[in-house]
């Protein structure tokens, strides 16, 4: 089993999408009950792996590998975990728990100001790996952000030199000025991430968008994925209240089953 998990890790780290399936139940007089708990894995390119030879042999007896792959890969569209019953034939039914392998959700907060501090505090209760980025050392410290996982003190430009976006990233842009908001959004707008939110008045947002459209040829469709104004509407006023509204929006995106 450990070798199987190593394969999962290798596939995932070479940035392939990986879907796993666990055999959770059997209705069969022929298939060995001890196989319950065994696994399969399908990667993006359609390769299939089994957690044991016995599992492979048994499954292949009843179903074509192509068909099995199709059953498992069906999930990729929804990205959600799913319990699925598959009828191998009239007398044999299996139940699989199918789910993708996912990165740990990361929250990247650009800007270490008065919104970022309560936001990091609240979000740390919700299982995010949190990074705050700002070039101002006087703001970016563990007194202001005791629950952050990492604080990166760099100009945004330099930060992006080694940056690699992940699918499970949540980006909050709350820098100290719109020239910085622009700098950050420019780097992220075309990345495949889960959430991008940017703070600002509609006037400021418009200025940033106009610049992106004109200078960087960003389309309206690309811009439409930015959550701005940021946060759910709860009539928030203080930085703490705004942080709650942003955190609520992160939750609503994360738990949205239809997305």
């Amino acid at each position, binding site marked *: *089993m450990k070798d199987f*998990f190593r394969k999962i*890790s290798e596939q995932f780290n070479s940035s392939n999408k990986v879907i*796993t399936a666990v055999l*959770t139940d059997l209705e069969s007089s022929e298939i060995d009950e001890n196989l*319950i708990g065994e696994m399969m894995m399908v990667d993006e390119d359609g390769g299939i792996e089994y957690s044991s030879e016995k599992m492979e042999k048994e499954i292949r007896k009843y179903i074509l590998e192509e068909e099995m792959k199709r059953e498992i890969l069906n999930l990729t569209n929804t990205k959600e*975990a799913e319990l699925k019953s598959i009828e191998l034939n009239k007398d044999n039914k299996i139940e699989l728990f199918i789910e993708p392998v*996912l990165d740990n959700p990361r929250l990247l907060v650009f800007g270490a100001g008065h919104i970022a501090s309560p936001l990091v505090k609240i979000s740390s209760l919700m299982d995010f790996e949190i990074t705050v980025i700002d070039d101002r050392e006087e703001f970016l410290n563990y007194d202001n952000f005791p629950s952050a996982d990492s604080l990166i003190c760099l100009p945004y430009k330099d930060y992006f030199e080694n940056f690699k976006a992940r699918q499970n990233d949540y980006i909050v842009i709350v820098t100290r000025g719109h020239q910085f908001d622009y700098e950050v959004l420019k780097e992220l707008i075309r990345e495949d991430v889960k959430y991008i939110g940017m703070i600002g008045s509609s006037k400021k947002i418009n200025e940033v968008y106009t610049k992106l459209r004109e200078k960087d040829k960003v389309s309206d469709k690309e811009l439409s994925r930015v959550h701005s104004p940021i946060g759910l509407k709860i009539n928030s006023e203080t930085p703490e209240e705004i942080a709650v509204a942003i955190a609520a929006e992160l939750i609503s995106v994360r738990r949205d089953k239809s997305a």
Partner: protein
Amino acid sequence: MRKSIVEKILEVKDDKNKIARAFVIDSKSSSPRNVGNEMLIFSDGKTFSTIGGGKDEKIIIDKALQLFSEDCRKSSKVEISLTRKEAAEIGWVCGGNVEIFIQLI
């Protein structure tokens, strides 16, 4: 499955150490759990990550430890259902049904 879970398994698992991965496979009514939430349980009773905490997480840990000690070593499903009243006693707002799979690794 979370990448951190895969990494933890690779870090801890060897011939001596048993690991169970428990994950929510179904959840009905107003249960606060999400399908796919998962945790690891080690043979010394220590855990990694959480499926929500509380009394029923204890049930899962005990069940995993029992599976470790049995000869057959078979993965197994556990169904936990709480009535409104039982739920209230452990501090939940509502009752519900969760089905959890304990996979021996």
